[in-house]
């Protein structure tokens, strides 16, 4: 596949050309209510987000910290389904045809939907991150997704061996999601030096961009990692903002401001 053919590749390519570290945001769909999601996504883009990750609510989010667990519970309490999540992406696409959208979640949600790849592509989804799907088990889904030009994005972790990292890099598409620490989302023991050294080494295995997530919560942490990564992912901190109360306009404004602050931190590092 020609890399310029997908929104993800195009966006990361453009960022790289303009020496801009991409900002990736994560929020959970339908948290705290279905009406918040699409306006929130537009607000994040307006605040400077380059790639949107949207969580598929799941009953058993085993790799998530307390913030995103709670977001999953709030969303499920609204009776949200994967079909509705796809509708949200489609609605987002009416106004924004350029910003890549990556769905993130757990395999059982996707397995339960027939023709997921086709329906996700129709809605305008560009990538999929399955927290509990290692490459050994992922071939079938990856083929289905590839047929619809959706990237299956694999994760590498601090504990991934070099040999395995090479195997995963060979299968990866879109970008590599580097998990910056041993732990769950929203953890707070990020070690920038370790991450930087490891990223430098991993880059020897693939020309794909590396986006770093877990433990990045504000302008300071984003700024510290920006020089070493192609993109940084902010999740739990945004999810906490979504949950902090207020009507849609208030939440969107808060989120946009938060994204803009983080963007400013990254821009300072990029200069």
């Amino acid at each position: 596949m020609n890399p310029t053919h997908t929104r993800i590749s195009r966006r990361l390519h453009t960022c790289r050309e303009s020496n801009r570290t991409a900002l990736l945001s994560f929020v959970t769909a339908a948290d705290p209510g279905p009406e918040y999601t699409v306006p929130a996504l537009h607000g994040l883009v307006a605040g400077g987000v380059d790639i949107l990750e949207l969580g598929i609510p799941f009953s058993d989010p085993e790799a998530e910290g307390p913030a995103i667990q709670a977001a999953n519970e709030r969303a499920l309490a609204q009776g949200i389904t994967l079909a509705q999540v796809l509708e949200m992406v489609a609605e987002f696409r009416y106004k924004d045809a350029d910003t890549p959208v990556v769905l993130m979640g757990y395999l059982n949600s996707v397995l339960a939907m027939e023709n997921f790849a086709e329906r996700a592509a129709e809605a305008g989804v560009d990538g999929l991150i399955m927290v509990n799907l290692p490459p050994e088990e992922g071939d079938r889904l990856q083929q289905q997704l590839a047929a619809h030009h959706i990237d299956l994005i694999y994760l590498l972790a601090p504990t991934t061996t070099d040999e395995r990292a090479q195997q995963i890099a060979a299968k990866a598409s879109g970008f590599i999601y580097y998990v910056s620490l041993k732990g769950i989302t929203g953890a707070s023991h990020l070690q920038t030096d370790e991450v930087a050294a490891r990223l430098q080494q991993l880059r020897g295995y693939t020309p794909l961009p590396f986006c770093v997530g877990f433990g990045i919560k504000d302008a300071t942490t984003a700024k510290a990692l920006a020089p070493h990564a192609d993109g940084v992912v902010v999740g739990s901190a945004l999810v906490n903002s979504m949950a902090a109360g207020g009507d849609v306009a208030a939440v969107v404004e808060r989120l946009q401001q938060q994204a803009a602050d983080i963007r400013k931190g990254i821009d300072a590092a990029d200069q």
Partner: protein
Amino acid sequence: MAEATDGSNYAQPTDDGHFGDYGGRFVAETLTHALDDLARLYNEVKDDPDFKRELHTDLAHFVGRPTPLYLAERLTETLGGAAVYLKREDLNHTGAHKVCNTIGQALLAKRMGKPRVIAETGAGQHGVATATVAARLGLQCDVYMGAEDVQRQSLNVYRMKLMGANVIPVTSGSKTLKDAMNEAMRDWVTNVDDTHYIIGTVAGPHPYPMIVRDFAATIGQEARAQMLEQVGCLPDVVVACVGGGSNAMGIFYPFIDDVDVALVGVEAGGHGIASGAHAAPLNDGKVGVLHGNRSYLMSDADGQIKETHSISAGLDYPGVGPEHSHLKDIGRATYASATDDEAMAAFRLLNSREGILPALETSHALAWVSANAPLMSKDQSILVNLSGRGDKDILTVAGIDGISLT
């Protein structure tokens, strides 16, 4: 060699942890390395004479194995059909078969040099069995338990604390066993360098379903030899209750190549399969992925894991070990269910006829025996895994009888 579909020449799982279409390793990338390490170590030590000796010594002198095979004469007479033999796992130290697995895994943790073990628990039996071996080996021990189960199983919570374990109530999700397992996975992914996760059933990611089965298989190995020695033949049927399925896998496994021996697992039928309020994924579930493996699951049309119901906390789990899914699909084992009421009736029957107080989990297997032994001839026999004793369930049963003991 290709595996015959009837189960003879049975050799599962594959090197990458698949039992037919089931099993595998569906986990966050951070854990892959630890699972590889565990699989490698286990393959190294499982046939190592020193490891086997160490395990055997503990099973003999700390746990009290072999457990007896017991002909339940008055129960057999009452039912009027097949002879009923009980494999007395209730007589293990700590009162259930679970300790066979925790001893084995704690010895693995020791070999890996990991000073801390964690576990999930529902009824508290696996938590107690883990706390027990942690005390025995001087390991730090944290046990995750759903907040609701902490309330329901206060006796076992206190037992764990007495042995120095820290019991952590889990308040996320449905606050039961599945959520305790999620929380234990989160702990493990964070503390993977110094912590071994002792999973309590034949579920989880590879190599757990294999390791737990192998440690539990001492039940079936003993029972098979005891049948031949005491009775002179193998049983016609082997029956065990199935939640995650470790006691069933433990007694089934050594009989899998004995294709004339029927293997029957009994799931928790709760208020009845038709009611939807049960914990019987092999009877009324669909294939999915949870807690690291592909297997039958109780999940809704959108893939969300359903809340389950069983009178027995130890069976109250929406998934089942992947090897059971495989045995079901190849037809080597069949899976029935027993309702709460049927289990309670069997519980009372064993108490009154044999003077044995079975666990409510175990009572589900006994309910199948109550219904099916009368349909069999007197020269046939049933081997039941009497997987645990019921002292822990006294408060639940008394509550059903309207008696307050507190």
